[in-house]
């Protein structure tokens, strides 16, 4: 499991989540995104194309990051959720809190 950060040509930070986002690694993701926010990035896409599962701690860290990014005038979008992960966001009603795109490209195009 690992996280990758890449800045696209328009300056949007694309964060890839490889494997899982759970209680054991959520802090690592949080710190990476917050460091990037501190460095001036304001637009973020979290790409779940390669993600197997997310637990409630992972969901919690996304909620927290979304708030912090909004407080700085930025925007966080999610992309690449498979059917199971999409269902997870729907049943927790977090699909109402996040802008969710089918693909990272679609999310990038929406900024």
């Amino acid at each position, binding site marked *: *499991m690992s996280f990758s950060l890449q800045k696209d040509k328009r300056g949007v930070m694309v964060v890839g989540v490889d494997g*899982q986002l*759970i*209680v*054991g*690694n959520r802090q690592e993701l949080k710190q990476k995104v917050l460091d990037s926010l501190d460095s001036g990035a304001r637009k973020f896409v979290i790409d779940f194309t390669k993600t*197997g*599962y*997310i*637990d*409630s*701690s992972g*969901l*919690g*860290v996304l*909620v*927290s990051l979304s*708030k912090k990014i909004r407080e700085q005038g930025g925007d966080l979008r999610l992309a690449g959720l498979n059917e*199971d*992960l999409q269902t*997870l966001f729907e*049943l*927790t*009603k*977090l699909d*109402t*809190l996040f802008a969710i795109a089918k693909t990272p490209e679609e999310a990038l195009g929406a900024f």
Partner: protein
Amino acid sequence: MTTPLQLEVRRPAGEFDVVMTLDVPSALEYVGPAVELIARHAPASLSARRVRFNLRTALAEALANAIAYGNRHDTSRVVRVRVEADWQGVRIHVRDDGAGFDPAAVPDPTLPQNLEREVGRGLFVLRHLVDHVAFNAAGNEICLTLRAG
């Protein structure tokens, strides 16, 4: 993570085809490896998709709750996992040494006032991912049932 996880797999004559036991130290970095270890030995009666998502997520929730709220990160304590599998599916027992809790007292995380809270979704998520959830009377052991399919 310094203590290696040791999964014991037995094929007892009797009620279950396979019984697995695992002691997990009470530190959150063990959750992911413990989940992977058990998922790799999941019975064939569960579909690959249910193992990949439902079993992994539900077990991660149960372990995290037991470590954080049950054993309160006390590394001198372990969380005991027992997995019973047969053709009908799998039952996973997760037990901590804590005082237990009242599952009915956990607030609904989907209410508008709770939606932006960082914590409080674990039990709700868990209930939706497995076929049955049961607690012992003391509230320090949860049993998750995933039926075959």
